[in-house]
Structures are given as structure tokens and as C-alpha cells.
């Protein structure tokens, strides 16, 4: 309690000296020091964006990077400490850990619903540290990047990634618009080791599909993650199956129950790349931008002709992860069975 008061006083004092106020995505006015040096990311999507704009200011990852993930980052940033998460399912970072890290700012990227606003308010009141909330949806990313850049004092560095995302999204929209409704295949996204969980309409897990205007067979179910009986999947008879689970991808070919599904018959079952962060589903951050190209090419091969996924990946990784992957890494990423059509 005393520590919080002292910290609050320090922040207030330094704030009086040199502060600026920037509104976050919910309209809350966030008062930060003119020069923000230490940023605590509340969840993985936030840590990615902060890392992109100002890797030196990120205090740590929410979960320590595994060796295969760390290989995609410059060594000095890969080794940042693990700090835990503040929000989302399974949230519960120790507030003392938070205070001990002495951040100037807490950044959270994701839902801006009332629950999360109240959580932000509570943490801010308890710790005295400004807590900024940003919209994590794909289409909101350019604005998020720019506002976050202002808050961190990195406007110039934010320009390139924000413009890049804007261009990519516009390009995807343009190509998707060329595809008539009838030519869009039925898609099923299978989660879990048995592939029997999926995202319903509006679920964040299938945001990429929604952006691509794809026909998610599970759209008749509303809400987040749902369990689908296998019979129902057979009834939907998807023409394309996407998954992030290697066990499911491996098992679907020998499983007699899936054999009759169109997607399996035509061998249009694909596994999304997952390093360093998944391209399609989780974590629900900017890492999914590549998923738009990957899935778009799989669903609408004609409209997405000429898109070099490899080149897109190299460019994205360089811009956002600050390290262009070498040829070997790209091979490992894209040549994994199931990622691309044979």
C-alpha cells in the first residue's frame, strides 16, 4: 500500500514536471511522462505491438519465449524476462511483480468492452500506473499503432508499420472483393487435438476468416469457441479445413470418420504456421496479418495469384519482429507438411 502511494507520488511529481495526455481507444485520457521508457504489456498482443514500436522499452514478455520462438528475434530481445499477463482468460499477474518492474505505462491490446475498461481502471487506481487499452481487431490495427506510437513517443517509428498494415489490409480487401460469393469455399476451422472445437460467428478465433469474407460453416453458432459434433461437421461438409493443431492435421488423413468430408477427399486441409507466433488464431495480435495472405491464397487461389507468401513473411518479420528470417527458417516455416498445397 505504501509503495503504491510512493509510486503514485513519483508519477504525479514527474507528471507535473513533464507529462502529456493521450486518449486511448476507449476515450480514457491517459497521462504519461513525456518520455516513456518502461512499458509493461498486459498480454501477448500488446507485447507484440510495443515490441514492434520500441523494443528497448518493453519490460518483458508475458510468457518466456521458447527456443524455437526465440530464434526469430534478436538475441537481446528474445531474452527479455517473463512477466505474466494481467488480463484475458487465465490472467492473474502478481501486482507486486508489476510494481516491482516500475513501468511508466501499461499497455493492453484486445477487447475494449466494459469489463476490460473496469479492470484497467481498477489496476490503475490500485497501482497508480497509467493503463491504456487498445482495440486489437485487425481493422483497428493501423489506428492502434499510431496512437500507441504517440503515447510511447515513437510517432516516427510507428509510421511505417501502421502504413504497412493499412496497405496490406486494403490489398486483401481489394482482392477479396473480386471473388464472387459463389466461388467462396465453405471453410471449417478445427481446434483442439480432435479438431472438434471451432469458432462461431463473431468469435475472435476466426477473425481472419471473417475479414476474408469466408463462409465459415460454423457461422450459425454465435459466440466464441464452441464444440461441434462430428456429425454436424459432416453435415456442413466444408471444402477447406484450416487448423493450428499438428496432431489434428496428422490424424485427419487416417481417420475413417473424416474421410468422407470434401476437404479431406480433395486434400484441402491445411496447418497454419506457428513460429514465432501463430499466423491464424492465437495469440490474437498483429501476428495474424500473415494469416490473411496464407488463408487468402488457400481459399481464393485465383484472386490471390501472384502473392508470394514467402516474401510477405520475410517483410512482415523484418518490420514487426525486427529480424528478417533466413532462408532456412523460412523453409522450416513453410515447408512443414500441411502449410501449403502440394
Amino acid at each position, binding site marked *: 500500500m505504501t509503495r503504491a502511494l510512493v509510486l503514485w507520488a513519483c508519477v504525479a511529481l514527474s507528471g507535473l514536471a513533464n507529462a502529456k495526455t493521450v486518449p486511448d481507444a476507449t476515450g480514457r485520457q491517459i497521462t504519461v511522462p513525456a518520455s516513456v521508457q518502461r512499458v509493461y504489456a498486459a498480454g501477448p498482443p500488446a507485447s507484440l505491438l510495443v515490441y514492434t514500436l520500441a523494443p528497448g522499452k518493453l519490460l518483458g514478455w508475458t510468457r518466456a519465449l521458447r527456443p524455437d520462438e526465440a530464434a526469430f528475434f534478436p538475441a537481446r530481445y528474445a531474452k527479455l524476462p517473463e512477466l505474466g499477463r494481467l488480463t484475458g*482468460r487465465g490472467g492473474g499477474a502478481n501486482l507486486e511483480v508489476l510494481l516491482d518492474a516500475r513501468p511508466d505505462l501499461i499497455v493492453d491490446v484486445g477487447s475494449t468492452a466494459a469489463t476490460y475498461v473496469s479492470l484497467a481502471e481498477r489496476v490503475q487506481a490500485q497501482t497508480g500506473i497509467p493503463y491504456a487499452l487498445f482495440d486489437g481487431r485487425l481493422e483497428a490495427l493501423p489506428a492502434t499503432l499510431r496512437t500507441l506510437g504517440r503515447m510511447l513517443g515513437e510517432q516516427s517509428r510507428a509510421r511505417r508499420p501502421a502504413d504497412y498494415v493499412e496497405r496490406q489490409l486494403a490489398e486483401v480487401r481489394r482482392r477479396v472483393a473480386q471473388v464472387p460469393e459463389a466461388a467462396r469455399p465453405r471453410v471449417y476451422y478445427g481446434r483442439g487435438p*480432435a479438431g472438434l472445437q471451432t469458432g462461431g460467428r463473431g468469435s475472435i478465433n476466426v477473425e481472419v476468416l471473417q475479414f476474408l469474407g469466408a463462409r465459415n460453416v460454423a457461422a450459425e453458432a454465435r459466440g466464441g*469457441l464452441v464444440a461441434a459434433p462430428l456429425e454436424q461437421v*459432416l453435415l456442413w461438409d466444408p471444402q477447406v479445413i484450416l487448423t493450428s493443431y499438428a496432431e489434428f492435421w496428422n490424424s485427419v488423413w487416417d481417420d475413417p470418420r473424416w*474421410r468422407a468430408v470434401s476437404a479431406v477427399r480433395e486434400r484441402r486441409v491445411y496447418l497454419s504456421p506457428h513460429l514465432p507466433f501463430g499466423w491464424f*488464431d492465437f495469440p490474437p495480435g498483429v501476428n495474424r496479418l500473415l494469416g490473411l495472405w496464407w488463408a487468402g491464397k488457400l481459399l481464393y487461389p485465383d484472386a490471390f495469384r501472384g502473392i508470394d507468401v514467402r516474401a510477405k513473411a520475410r517483410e512482415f518479420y523484418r518490420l514487426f519482429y525486427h529480424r528478417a528470417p533466413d532462408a532456412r527458417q523460412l523453409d522450416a516455416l513453410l515447408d512443414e507438411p500441411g502449410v501449403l498445397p502440394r
Partner: protein
Amino acid sequence: MRSHAAAYALAVAALAALILVAFSVGRYPVSVGQLATLVLDKLGGTRPLAPMIATVVLEIRGPRVLAAVLVGASLAAAGTAYQGMFRNPLVSPDILGVSTGAALGAVLAIFLSLGVFAIQGFAFAGGLAAVALIYWIGSRLRGHDPLLALVLTGVVIGALLGSAIALLKYLADPYNQLPAITFWLLGSLASIAPRDLEVAAPLALLGLAPMLLLRWRMNLLALPDDEARALGVDTRLLRALVVAAATLMTAASVAIAGIIGWVGLLVPHAARLLVGPDFGRLLPLAMLIGAAFLLAVDTLCRTIAPIEIPPGVLTAVLGTPFFLWLFAVSRRRW
């Protein structure tokens, strides 16, 4: 005696009818005509005309129906055995921690990102290990009523296992592993494959055999320990066998279907209200009712909505009023 025969006949008829219904309904529309054609094709050895129908009925619905029957019967049998052994009608198959142990095994496997077969294997092993541990500790506690020692040990160790599960849930990746864990813990017959039955059925039968063979002696477990021993029963050995048998049946069920509650608790009651406590009469009826009950519940779970409803929810919602009604109209005591 007359009412007993009627109860059996009713249960068999209900189960048969439910099996027929379960085969004919589902999200994927299969008409009775198509069903009949399929059966004839299979019997005649010809290839089925519609491969999709064959897949739905033979690979998905069939195994699922059989699994519901197997799991329902196993849980009911285990519950019946335990209620007799613990002389307490409020006992469920999980009293010695088999479900919690299996849950821990499965959660650990999901946490380690293992495949479906490994998850089932871990669940089965976890269930057996938990009961073995609890039984071993409980039987070492001298100077107490042996049953009370078992129950208390089960409660304590079960709580410990539960906290381990909570810890794993906390450490799990919230986007990836945690939802899978949550779904598993809710229990479901949705992903039953024929191979699951090939493994689980023999295990369940292995557990059922001693119960059937010892059905007369099991009645004596309802007596105070001294009396049973004075009548010539080795109560320690018999209890150990009952625990082993019930655990095999329950662990096999939980491994393929996750945790489905209420069946093991309510069904033995219902059966006892109909035919009395003699284990030889009670066990077959409890198994029939358990199979029918779970089959009815599962059929509802997979047909009501495009998404799956956890069977544990429906078993509670349907089972409780049914049981209350049965209790109200019956004149017997336990």
C-alpha cells in the same frame, strides 16, 4: 417378484427403443429407409450406396451410441458397487478419486500438447494411480473404521489432485491449451472413434467380470464388518476387488468420455427403488437403466443444437426430477 420382472422388461425395452432412436436421429439427416438400406447392404456384403451415410451411421453415430451404452452401464455398475460397499446411498463412483485422477492425467497430457490417444491413456493411468494411492494410504490407517479411512483419504487426496489440476490450468496457455482443458473437463462423447471402443470395452468388461462373479458376496458388504467376517467373508480382499473392478470400469469410461456426473449416483438409487438391494438383481437393472439414461441424454446433447451441450449438464437437469418422481411413487426404503 412380478414387479421385478416387469422392471427388467421395461428397462430392456426402453434401451432397445432408445438405441433404435439414437441411430435414426442426428444432425446429419438419415431417413429410416436409408438406415434399412445400409443394414441390408452390410448384411449382404455389398458396398453401401452412399458413403457419407455409411460414414455417419457406422463410424460416427454407431460408436457414439455404443459408447454411451458402455459408459452409462459402467458408471451405473461402479456406483452400485460402491453404494453397497460403503453402505451409503449418497456415494458416487468418484468417491475414491478416480475421476479426479483421470482428469489430472488428461489435463497433464493436454498441457504437454499430446495427441488424443495419449490424452486417453494418461487419463486412464491417472485414474488407476489415484485410486491405488488412496487405497494404499487408506488401508494403512489403522485404528479407524476401514471405510471411513478410505473415504477421508479419498477426500483429502482428491482435493490435492484437484489443486494440481487448478495449477495446470493456471499455467496452461490460455489461448491454446486452456480451452481444450475446459472442454475435456466438461465431458463429452463427441469425439468417440471406433478405436476408443476397442480399447475401453475390454477394460470395462474386465472390471465387470469380478462384480458379476462376486455378486452374492457383495451383499454381505452391507453388513457391519464383524458380521460379514463372522459369516466367512474376507472383507478386506473383497473390498479391494470391488474397488479394483469399479475403478477399471470408471477409469475406462472417463478416459474416453471425460467426466460425466450423476449417472453413477442416481441410477443405482432408481434401480434399488425398483428391485431392492440384492446385488445380483440390482446390478443388471442398474446397468440397463444407466445405459438407457446416458444414451437418452447424449442423443439429446447432439441433436438439440448445432453445438454440443456437455452431457453432465443434462444428466443433472433430467436425472434429478426423474429421481424425485421415482422416490415419491415408490414405497420402498433404500
